C-alpha cells in the first residue's frame, strides 16, 4: 500500500525535496482516509522531524521510517492517557452510596445519539445495573417514542422486567429540558435506579443559540459523564464539531468521551475518529458499528491504525 513512496525516493541521499514529496504523499493518503487536511498535515510535520534527523541512505529505509513514524503517531494519538474503566467508576460511586450515576449524550443532528444511548443501556443492563432512560430531546418529532420503543425492547431482553424504565416529560422548550433532567435524577434516587441516561436533542455546533442551553443543562443535571457522539461519515467538519461541543459546557466542564458511531458505514475511511481526538484530546469510549444493541465496541487501536495505514 505504501508503494507510492517507492516512486518518490529513488536516490541515495534524502534531499529536502524528497522529504517534501513523502510528506505530500502521506498527507494525501491520510486525507483519502477522511482525516482532515489540517490534522493530516500536523501529524506529518511530526514525521518530518524524524525523517530529516535520520541518516538513512536507501529508499526502503526511508519508506519504513516514514511509515513507522506515522504509525507511532497514530497509536499515541488514539491510545487514551488514562485507562478507561467506566464500570469501575460506576461501582465506586455505588459503593459510596452516591447513586445515580448520570451520563448524557450530545452531538449534532442524526449522528446516532439516541441509538447509541440505547446500546449503552443494554451494556449497563448486562452488567446488572438498573437504568433510567430519560427523554431530554423535547424537540425532534418522535424522539420520545423512539426511546420508548427502545425501552420496551430492552425490557423484553432483560430478565428483571423492572430493570429499565423511561422517564419523559413530552415535548417543549429548553426550560422543560432541565426540568426533565433534574426530575429524572430525583426519580432515580427515590426508586433505586443506578444509572440515569440523558438523551439530548441534536444541534448544530455552529449555532450559538442552540449550543448555549447545553451549559445550563450541564449545570442543572451535573452529569458524571458527558459523551459526544461523533459520526464516522462526517468529513472535515468533525474537527470543529468536537471543539465546539467540548467548549459548550463552560470553563470548568468539558467532554469526557466520544462514541464514534456508524463505523460500519465507512470501510477503512475511519479518519473522522482521528479528527475528533486530535481536535480535543478527548478519548474514545466506544465505537458504534451497527444498528443493534450489541453493536458497540471498545476501540481496538491496533485495528484502527492498521485501517488507517492500509
Amino acid at each position, binding site marked *: 500500500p505504501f508503494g507510492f513512496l517507492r516512486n518518490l525516493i529513488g536516490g541515495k541521499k534524502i534531499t529536502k525535496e524528497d522529504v517534501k514529496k513523502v510528506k505530500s504523499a502521506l498527507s494525501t493518503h491520510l486525507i483519502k482516509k477522511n482525516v482532515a487536511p489540517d490534522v493530516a498535515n500536523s501529524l506529518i510535520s511530526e514525521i518530518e522531524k524524524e525523517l530529516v534527523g535520520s541518516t538513512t541512505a536507501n529508499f526502503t529505509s526511508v519508506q519504513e521510517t516514514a511509515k513507522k513514524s506515522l504509525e507511532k503517531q497514530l497509536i499515541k494519538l488514539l491510545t487514551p492517557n488514562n485507562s478507561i474503566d467506566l464500570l469501575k467508576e460506576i461501582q465506586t460511586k455505588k459503593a459510596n452510596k452516591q447513586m445515580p450515576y448520570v451520563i448524557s449524550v450530545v452531538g449534532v443532528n442524526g449522528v446516532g445519539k439516541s441509538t447509541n444511548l440505547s446500546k449503552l443501556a443494554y451494556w449497563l443492563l448486562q452488567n446488572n445495573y438498573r437504568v433510567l432512560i430519560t427523554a431530554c430531546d423535547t424537540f425532534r418529532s*418522535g424522539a420520545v417514542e*423512539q426511546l420508548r420503543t427502545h425501552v420496551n425492547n430492552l425490557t423484553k431482553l432483560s430478565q428483571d422486567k423492572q430493570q429499565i424504565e423511561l422517564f419523559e416529560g413530552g415535548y417543549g422548550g429548553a426550560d422543560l429540558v432541565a426540568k426533565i433532567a433534574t426530575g429524572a435524577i430525583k426519580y432515580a434516587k427515590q426508586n433505586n435506579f443506578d444509572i440515569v441516561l440523558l438523551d439530548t436533542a441534536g444541534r448544530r*455546533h455552529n*449555532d450559538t443559540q442552540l449550543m448555549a442551553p447545553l451549559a445550563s443543562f450541564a449545570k442543572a443535571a451535573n452529569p458524571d459523564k458527558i459523551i459526544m457522539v461523533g459520526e464516522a461519515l462526517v468529513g*472535515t467538519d468533525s474537527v470543529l464539531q468536537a471543539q465546539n461541543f467540548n467548549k459548550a459546557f463552560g470553563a470548568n466542564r468539558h467532554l469526557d468521551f466520544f462514541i464514534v458511531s456508524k463505523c460500519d*458505514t465507512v*470501510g477503512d475511511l475511519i479518519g473522522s475518529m482521528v479528527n475528533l481526538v486530535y481536535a480535543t484530546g478527548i478519548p474514545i469510549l466506544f465505537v458504534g458499528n451497527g444498528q443493534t444493541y450489541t453493536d458497540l465496541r471498545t476501540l481496538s487501536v491496533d485495528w484502527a491504525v492498521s485501517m488507517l495505514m492500509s
Partner: protein
Amino acid sequence: MVLADLGKRINNAVSEVTKASVVDQSAVDGLLKEISNALIEADVNVKLVLNLRKKLKATIEAEEKPGINKKKLIQKAVFDELCDLVDCKETELYKPKKKKTNVIMFVGLQGAGKTTTCTKLAVYYQRRGFKVGMVCADTFRAGAFDQLKQNATKAKIPYYGSYTEADPVKVAADGVDKFKKEKFEIIIVDTSGRHRQETELFAEMIQIGEAVQPNQTIMVLDASIGQSAESQSRAFKDSSNFGAIILTKMDGHAKGGGAISAVAATQTPIAFIGTGEHINDLESFTPRQFVSKLLGIGDIQGLMEH
C-alpha cells in the same frame, strides 16, 4: 451561507492571480494549489480535485495570448470547472404532473435527514397545489412512524403507516395503493436508513422500489459527509437509480464538498437543499447560481460573454 468561505478563498486566489501584471507559470501553479487545497478542505473527493486541477491547468495553458484575456480565461475556467462539479447537464429533473399519480421514494444513509425532508417536500408541493400524501415504509427504526406522523400532522399532510406490520415492502405497497385510489397526485415514500455494506437492506430497498414503482427516487445526503460520499452514493445509484439528490443540513458549518462529490460520482443533479430542522427549511437548487454566489460573481452573463 454554506461554502461562503470556500468561495471567498477561491475568489481571492483568482483575483490575486489576475491582479498580477504578468500571469506566469508559477502564479498559475500557486492558484491551482490554493484552489485544490480549498476544495479538499471542503471535503471534495481527493481524486476529483486532482482531476479538476489537471483540467484547469490544461485549459489555462492552452491559451497562448498573454495579458487581460488570460485573466478572464482563468476566471471563466474556474467557474466552468466548479459548475461541472455540481451541474449535470443532460439529466433533467423530474417534474411531477398534476392530475396524475407521482410516486417519490426517498433513500439514503442512516440519519441523513430523509424523514424530515419528506415532510418538507410534501409541504413544498402542497403549496403548489398538489394533493400530497406520505407513506412511512420505515418499519425498522425505533419511533420512525411516530416521527413521520407528528411531522405530517404539524404540516397537515395525510399520511399512512403501520405500528404492527413489520414488512416495509407491504406497508409501502399498501400506502401507495390507498393514496392512488384516493387520487392523490404526489405520494412520498419514506424508507429506512441503510448503507452499502448492508446487503440485505439494499435488497429490501430494491423490493420497495419494485412494489411502489417510483416516478422519482431521491437520495438524501448530509452536507457534512466526507470522503465516503463517493462509494456510498455510487452504491445507492447502482441499486436504486435515484434521479435527484437533496443535500440536507446546509445550515451547518460543513461546506458540502463531500456531497457535491456524490453529484459528480453519480451524474445526478441536486434538486433541493435543506437548511434547517423546520418544515419550511427547503430551497430549490440551481447549480450555476450556486457557483456564482460561491465565487461572488454577480453578473455571470457578463463573464460568459467575454
